[in-house]
C-alpha cells in the first residue's frame, strides 16, 4: 500500500519536474522574442520587460495546455502583443510627456538624423492596423521567414504574404509623406 502511494507520488513529482524543465526550455528560447514583441509596441526597455514577464507568468499558469512548442510561441506572441497594447494605452493616458522623453533616450542612433529617421519609422509602424503591425514586427524579429510568422500568427502563408505586402506599402507611403513633410518645414 505504502509502496503504491510512493510510486504514485513519484509519478506526480516526475510530471511536475518534466513540466518545469519544459517551461525552462521555452523561457530560454522565447524570452527575446517576447521582449522584442513588447518592445515594438512600448519602445521602453523596462515596460517591455515587465509585460513580457507577465506574459510568461500567464503562460506558466496554462502551461499544461501549451506544452507544444509552436503553440506556446504563438500564444506567447499574441498574449505579449495584446498586453503591450494595453500597457501602451494606459501609458498614453498617464505619461504622454515622459514616454516621449524615454523614446528619444531608447533610440540609440549615432546622429540626430538617425534618431529622426527611427522615430519616423516607429510612428509609421504605430499607425498600421494591428494585424499588419504584428506581422511586420514578427517578420523583422530575428529574421523570421514567412513560414515562421505564419506559425506564430496561426494563419496561412498566403495571409502573411498579403499582410506583409500591405504593411510595406503603407509604410513606404507614410515614410515618403513624412520625409516630404520634414524637408518642407
Amino acid at each position, binding site marked *: 500500500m505504502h509502496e503504491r502511494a510512493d510510486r504514485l507520488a513519484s509519478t506526480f513529482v516526475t510530471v511536475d519536474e518534466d513540466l518545469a524543465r519544459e*517551461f525552462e526550455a521555452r523561457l530560454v528560447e522565447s*524570452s527575446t522574442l517576447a*521582449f522584442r514583441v513588447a518592445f*515594438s509596441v512600448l519602445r521602453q*526597455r523596462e515596460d517591455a520587460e515587465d509585460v513580457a514577464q507577465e506574459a510568461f507568468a500567464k503562460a506558466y499558469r496554462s502551461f*499544461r495546455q501549451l506544452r507544444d512548442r509552436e503553440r506556446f510561441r504563438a500564444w506567447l506572441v499574441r498574449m505579449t502583443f495584446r498586453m503591450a497594447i494595453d500597457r501602451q494605452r494606459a501609458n498614453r493616458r498617464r505619461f504622454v510627456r515622459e514616454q516621449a522623453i524615454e523614446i528619444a533616450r531608447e533610440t540609440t542612433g549615432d546622429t540626430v538624423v538617425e534618431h529622426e529617421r527611427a522615430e519616423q519609422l*516607429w510612428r509609421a509602424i504605430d499607425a498600421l492596423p494591428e494585424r499588419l503591425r504584428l506581422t511586420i514586427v514578427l517578420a523583422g524579429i530575428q529574421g523570421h521567414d514567412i513560414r515562421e510568422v505564419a506559425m506564430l500568427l496561426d494563419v496561412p502563408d498566403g495571409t502573411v504574404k498579403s499582410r506583409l505586402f500591405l504593411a510595406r506599402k503603407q509604410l513606404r507611403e507614410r515614410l515618403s509623406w513624412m520625409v516630404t513633410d520634414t524637408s518642407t518645414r
Partner: protein
Amino acid sequence: MNDPSLDREIESLLATEPSPEFVARVRARVATEPDPGRWRPSFIFATAGAVVVVIVAVIAWPSREPAPAGPKGPALQVQIAPAPVQPIHRQPATLRIVAVAASPDRPIDIDLPDVVIAENEVKAYTTLVSSIRRSRFDVAVPAAPDPNTPLEIKELPAAEPIEIEPIVRLAVLQTEGERP
C-alpha cells in the same frame, strides 16, 4: 525605398536585447505562481460548490418512481365486488336504477391511480357509492321523451293590463313638491 532596405531598417529597430537579468527576473516571477498541474484554491472551491449544487438538485428533484407499497394508515379502499344486481324494470314514465350493496359496512376498495383522480373526487365518489348502498336516496333518471309523441303546448294564462300614469301628471306633482 525598396523592400529589403525597409526590412533592414525595421530589423535594426527591433534588434534590442533584453537586459541580462531579464530571464532571471522571469524565473523569480514564475516561481511565485502555483504549479500549473496543481489545482488552485479557487478552482477547488468552485468545483466543490458545483458538486454540492448537483447533489442537492438530485436529492430535491421530485422522483417519478412510484412510491413503494406499504402500510399507509387508514387508506381509503374501495372494492368493486360482484354484487348481485337487481334487474331494471323499465316503466313508461321514469327509469329507476337501484343498486344494492351486499353489505353497507364492507370497506370500499377502488384501486385508482393517484395522479388521475383528485382526492376530493375519490372521496365524493365513495360517499356517493356508500349512500347508494345504504339506500339513502334513489337514483332516478327521467326517461327520455318519445320522439313520436306530438309536442304538447299549454296555453299561457291571460295577463292583466298594466295601468301607467301619464307623464304630465307626474311633472305637476313634482312642481308641487310632492313625490310621486
